[in-house]
C-alpha cells in the first residue's frame, strides 16, 4: 500500500520550467499557498498558471515565474482587485488567456475527459471571442446550433489544498465548497494535494459525511501535510482568511522594495518559521 506523503520541496522537485500548473481553490479561498511559496523559493520559470485566481496567481506574477495565466478572474475577495496581477497585466509582463468562469470549468472538464473540446453557449458575442483569436465555434450536426468549442486545458500538474487527507492520497473537504479541485486533479498528469492534517483513513467518517470525500487516491500522486498551508487564504472550518496579512500582501504591490520586504518576511523562510510568524501553534 502506497504511502504518498511528501514535503513541499518534494513536490516542487517534480516541477519543470515551462510546465502548465493548475491551482485549485477559488479567489482567496483554500489555495495551496505553502506549495506556492515553495515554488517562489525555487528557480522555476516560464510557468503557465491555470486558476480561479487569487494570491497564488498574484505571487507568481510578482516573482516573475508566471509567463502565462489562464483565468476567469483574479481576486482577493475582500480586496476585489489583485494588485500584483494587475501590475503584471498593466506592465505587460505576462501573457493572458481570459475566459468566462464556466468556460474555464469546461476546458478542465474536456481535459479530464480526454476530448479536445466541449461545446458551450458561454462566450458567444463577448470579447472572449476577440481576445482569444484561437477560439472557434462548432455547428451541431443535429440541429445547426452554433456553439463555442471550448478547447481542453490539459495540465501537467495540479496543486490543491484539502482540510484532511490520508497517507494514501484520499482527500476530505470540511468546508461548504469543494470548488473545482477534483476537476483540476482529473485534468492533470501529476496531481498533488496538500492538507491541514494527515489522518488515519478510519478517521474520515468521524470528521464528516461520505459526501466530504471528494478526492479519491486515484486522483493524487502525493500528499503534503501542511498545517495552515492555505494561509493567508481561508480554509474553513479550520481557519478564516487572515485579512491583516492579506492587506500587507496587497500593499506590497506598491513597488519593488515593498514586495522584496514582504517576500523576505513571509516567503523566503522555512514553513515552520512561517507558522510561528502567523501565530499558529505547532
Amino acid at each position, binding site marked *: 500500500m502506497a504511502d504518498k506523503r511528501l514535503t513541499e520541496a518534494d513536490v516542487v522537485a517534480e516541477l519543470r520550467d515551462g510546465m502548465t500548473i493548475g491551482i485549485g481553490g*477559488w479567489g482567496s479561498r483554500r489555495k495551496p499557498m505553502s506549495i506556492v511559496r515553495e515554488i517562489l523559493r525555487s528557480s522555476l520559470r516560464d510557468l503557465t498558471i491555470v486558476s480561479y485566481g487569487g494570491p497564488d496567481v498574484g505571487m507568481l506574477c510578482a516573482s516573475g515565474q508566471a509567463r502565462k495565466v489562464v*483565468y*476567469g*478572474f*483574479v*481576486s482577493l475577495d475582500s480586496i*476585489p*482587485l489583485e494588485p500584483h*496581477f*494587475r501590475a503584471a*497585466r*498593466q506592465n*505587460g509582463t505576462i501573457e493572458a488567456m*481570459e*475566459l*468566462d*468562469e*464556466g*468556460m474555464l*470549468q469546461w476546458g478542465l472538464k474536456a481535459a479530464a475527459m480526454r476530448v479536445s473540446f466541449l461545446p*458551450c*453557449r*458561454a*462566450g*458567444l*458575442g*463577448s*470579447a*472572449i471571442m476577440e*481576445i482569444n483569436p484561437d477560439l472557434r465555434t462548432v455547428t451541431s450536426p443535429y440541429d445547426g*446550433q*452554433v*456553439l463555442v468549442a471550448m478547447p481542453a486545458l490539459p495540465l501537467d500538474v495540479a496543486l490543491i489544498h484539502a482540510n484532511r487527507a490520508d497517507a494514501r492520497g484520499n482527500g476530505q473537504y470540511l468546508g*461548504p*465548497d*469543494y*470548488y*473545482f479541485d477534483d*476537476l483540476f486533479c482529473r485534468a492533470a498528469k501529476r496531481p498533488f494535494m496538500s492538507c491541514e492534517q494527515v489522518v488515519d483513513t478510519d478517521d474520515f467518517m468521524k470528521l464528516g459525511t461520505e459526501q466530504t470525500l471528494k478526492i479519491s487516491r486515484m486522483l493524487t500522486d502525493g500528499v503534503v501535510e501542511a498545517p495552515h498551508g492555505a494561509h493567508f487564504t481561508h480554509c*474553513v472550518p479550520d481557519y*478564516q482568511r487572515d485579512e491583516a496579512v492579506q492587506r500587507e500582501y496587497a500593499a506590497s504591490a506598491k513597488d519593488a522594495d515593498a514586495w522584496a520586504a514582504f517576500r523576505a518576511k513571509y516567503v523566503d523562510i522555512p514553513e515552520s518559521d512561517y507558522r510561528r510568524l502567523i501565530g499558529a501553534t505547532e
Partner: protein
Amino acid sequence: MSSDATLAEVCVVACAEAWRGDGEILASPIGTIPTIGVRLAALTFEPDLVYTDGDAIVLGAPLPVGAPPEAARIVEGWLPFGHMFDIVWSGKRHVMMGATQIDRFGNQNIACIGPWARPKAQLLGVRGAPGNTVNHPTSYWVPQHSTRVFVEQVDCVSGIGYDRAAAAGPTASEFHEIRRVVSNLAVLDFETPDHAMRLRSVHPGVSVDKVGESTGFPLVVPDDVPETRAPTDDDLTLIRDLIDPNGLRNAEVPS
C-alpha cells in the same frame, strides 16, 4: 408609502423590483444593495426566490447582510460553485452584476479599462458575465451613475448587450435578456423597439435632465417618466430592523 426613506433604501426597493415575477429561480445579487433587495423581495412580493448567503449555503430565511460566518442561519440547500454553473447553464437564474462600463444596448465591462492586450487598468476579468448574459436574465447595479460608467462604447465586452447578442446568432440571443439597470439616480430598461436603453423611472428628487447629463449616450426618454416606487413602511421596517440592521447600505449609497 413612506416619506423618510433614504436614497439607499429607494435603491434597495428598485433592485428588489428587478426580480418581481421571477418565481422559483436563483436570485444572485452582487453587491450590498442588490443583496438587501433580493432578501426584501423574498420577504414581500416574491416569496419563492431561491437565494444564498453569498457562499454555498441556500438560505431558508433571510439573514442580515454582513452577518459573520458563525451566525446561525436556516439552511435549505447547498450550492457550491460547480452547482452554480449548472444552474447558470440551465437558465434558472437572474443575476444582478456590477458594471464598470455599460453602453446603450447593455454591453457591460468589468474586465479592464483601455485596450485588453495592455490595459490601462486591469479590473476583475470577465468573470461569469459572458455566460450569464447568454443563459438567463441579467440586471446591473451602478452605485455611482456617471458618464464614466454609462459610455458610448465599453472597452471590453464582458456581459453582452442586445446588439451583439443579435449579431452572434440565435444561440446567443434565445435566452438573452437584460432586465434592468438600477443606479443611484434612476431605473433603466431596454423596453424599446431596438432595445436601446430607456429611462424607466427617476428616484425621488432626481430630474430627468440630471440623468441625461450623467449618461454618456442619448437615452430613450418617454414623455412621462414616473418616480421610482418609494419603499412602503413595511419595506423600511424589514430593511432597517431585519435585513440590514447595521446600515451597510449607506456605505454603498450615502445619503
